[in-house]
């Protein structure tokens, strides 16, 4: 039995070492993300830590499933309920599927808010949008239109067909399209937030629509893959890739010219704001009700609408003039 024993002992040791990382503090706020290992969410975690340091006595539990599934997030939520965290701030993979689990969390006295990608109303106390969907929808079209004085064909490369926020933005973008005469949206394709699939979808767009002037990717994975596809196809200058991206990942594309400009809100601010709101709600400094104003530290205050939703700030445009400054931040 020596091998079995050795395996078990080393497994126990490994678990023991991992356990040491967590230590008891007064307030535990869990930042649950769609999946671990995504730059955007790592940046949000940085912001959450910043808020925790400012508040003092707050432990941030940054966690999420390995792949972007609702079932994986529910397992994470169950584990968080079991260890009695004080608040859960979640960016959901599915607005409906995680709601029953989060409702149970609220029943057990846990403060639950959603941020970035929302949860159905009954599954959270409030939702923090990084910006307003209408503004984002308008921004992504404007970013493309600004560099197309004569108009032309544009296509959208999105995440998955079930991604809540991407679908809302595309919806809003379609609504404002008539304000940009000459801009012709020819297709919306889905790269599933996978680099290789997004790359192939971008190649497919270029092959199908030879007159394509811009690819709009409202996802950090998609915009990077599309700019790579455009670069590899030697179409820099012909096709402008724009949308929502991370400065650190997009710096190369902006330098090469595959992307003239792109936008994103500040994920650090988002994680910071979500933590501040969670803290203020669980401490009873504010209540989540329509019309309420919840302090978000250095960012200001979130004002809730009838759906208990609030917008943090406007999206911010990055281009050759400021990319150097931001690429080292996130």
């Amino acid at each position, binding site marked *: 039995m020596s091998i079995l024993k050795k395996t078990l002992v080393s497994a126990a040791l490994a678990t023991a070492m991992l356990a040491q990382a967590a230590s008891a503090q007064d307030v535990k706020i869990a930042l649950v993300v769609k999946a671990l290992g995504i730059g955007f969410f790592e940046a949000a975690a940085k912001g959450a830590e910043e808020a925790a340091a400012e508040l003092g006595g707050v432990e941030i539990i940054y966690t999420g499933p390995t*792949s972007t599934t609702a079932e994986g997030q529910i397992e994470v939520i169950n584990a968080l309920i079991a260890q009695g965290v004080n608040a859960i701030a979640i960016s959901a993979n599915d607005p409906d599927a995680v709601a*029953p689990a989060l409702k149970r969390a609220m029943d057990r006295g846990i403060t639950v808010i959603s941020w970035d990608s929302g949860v159905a109303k009954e599954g959270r106390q409030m939702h923090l949008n990084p910006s307003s969907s209408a503004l984002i929808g308008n921004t992504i079209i404007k970013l493309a239109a600004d560099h197309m004085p004569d108009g032309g064909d544009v296509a959208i490369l999105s995440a998955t067909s079930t991604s809540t926020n991407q679908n809302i933005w595309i919806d809003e973008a379609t609504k404002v399209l008539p304000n940009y005469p000459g801009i012709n949206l020819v297709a919306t394709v889905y790269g599933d937030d996978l680099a290789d699939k997004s790359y192939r979808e971008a190649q497919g767009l270029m092959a199908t629509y030879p007159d394509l002037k811009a690819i709009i990717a409202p996802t950090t994975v998609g915009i990077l893959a599309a700019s790579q596809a455009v670069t590899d196809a030697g179409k820099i200058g012909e096709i402008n890739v724009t949308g929502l991206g991370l400065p650190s990942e997009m710096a190369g594309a902006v330098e090469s010219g595959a992307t003239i400009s792109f936008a994103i809100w500040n994920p650090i601010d988002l994680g910071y704001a979500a933590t501040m709101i969670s803290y203020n709600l669980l401490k009873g400094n504010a209540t989540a009700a329509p019309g309420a104003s919840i302090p978000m530290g250095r960012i200001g205050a979130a004002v809730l609408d009838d759906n208990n939703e609030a917008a943090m700030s406007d999206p911010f445009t990055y281009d050759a003039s400021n990319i150097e400054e931001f690429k080292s931040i996130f």
Partner: protein
Amino acid sequence: MTPPPRFIPDRLQSRAARALRSWETILVAVAIAIFITNSFMSPFFLNAWNLSDATFNFTEKAMIAFAMAMLIIAGEIDLSVASIIALASTAMGLAMQAGAGVPVLVLAGMGTGLICGAVNGFLVAGLGLPSIVVTIGTLSLFRGIAFIVLGDKAFTGYPPEFAFFGQGYVWWVFSFELVLFAVLAVIYWVLLHRTSFGRAVYAIGNNATAAQFSGIRVARVRFILFLMTGLMSGIAAVCLTSRLGSTRPSIATGWELEVVTMVVLGGVSILGGAGSIPGVVLAAFIMGMVTFGFGLLNVPGIVMSIFLGVLLISVIALPRLFRRG
């Protein structure tokens, strides 16, 4: 140089000695070790409600794993189970929109599972196509249909009584899903280990041709086994849809591999012919406890995957090392 004379034991090992060296014993040891480690690692582990919550991590997958175990013992495999869940859940959503009550919803889910199982069974047992190829095909097909029906939409608004299957409790901390899991475990144990049908499954897995010549209706047994994985996927779909309270075409993505992992960890030979239901039950508990225990410590999911991978390989490798020694 002459080879050493082959060792032929005078008699088989005693019942106790065989039990001690069996796969299930190793799994019990691993399960106990994980249980004890978890109890020491987190003060939240030994809590009836928390443990009850943790069972939701594996009950639905384990239901499918029972049927999958029998299928793999018979030398076949069904990789379309997660897609059957998606299609069955979509069918339930459509039934709900048509105003169906809870009994009809359950029947819609189970019925869709059976139909999908029949499609797989017909292609494998009827046409003689290899099951791995057929079910990789239906894996895309079934989920594809769910995506065509739903697109980026979701079915929500299931009747409140429907929530019982995935969120209800039969008694104290024993959820409906946990009780159903236990009942199904007993049924499958009887079916595999105490009936002639079960013996036929082993016979086919060891040598299908010999089984055929022994008078076992191989094609019929295979067809029934595919019906069973389909039905179990349908039942799992009822539970999962009820637990999530909604249907999306991406429901249960990637579960086929988790189910197969559970079956293999349970000691079922991937080549067919060997395995047991108690082994699968133990594997289900081990996987559930590892996921939950690591979750309590907020260990990133990728570390859990690595741990399960190492566990799987070491549990498979151990008996071979024993036999050599």
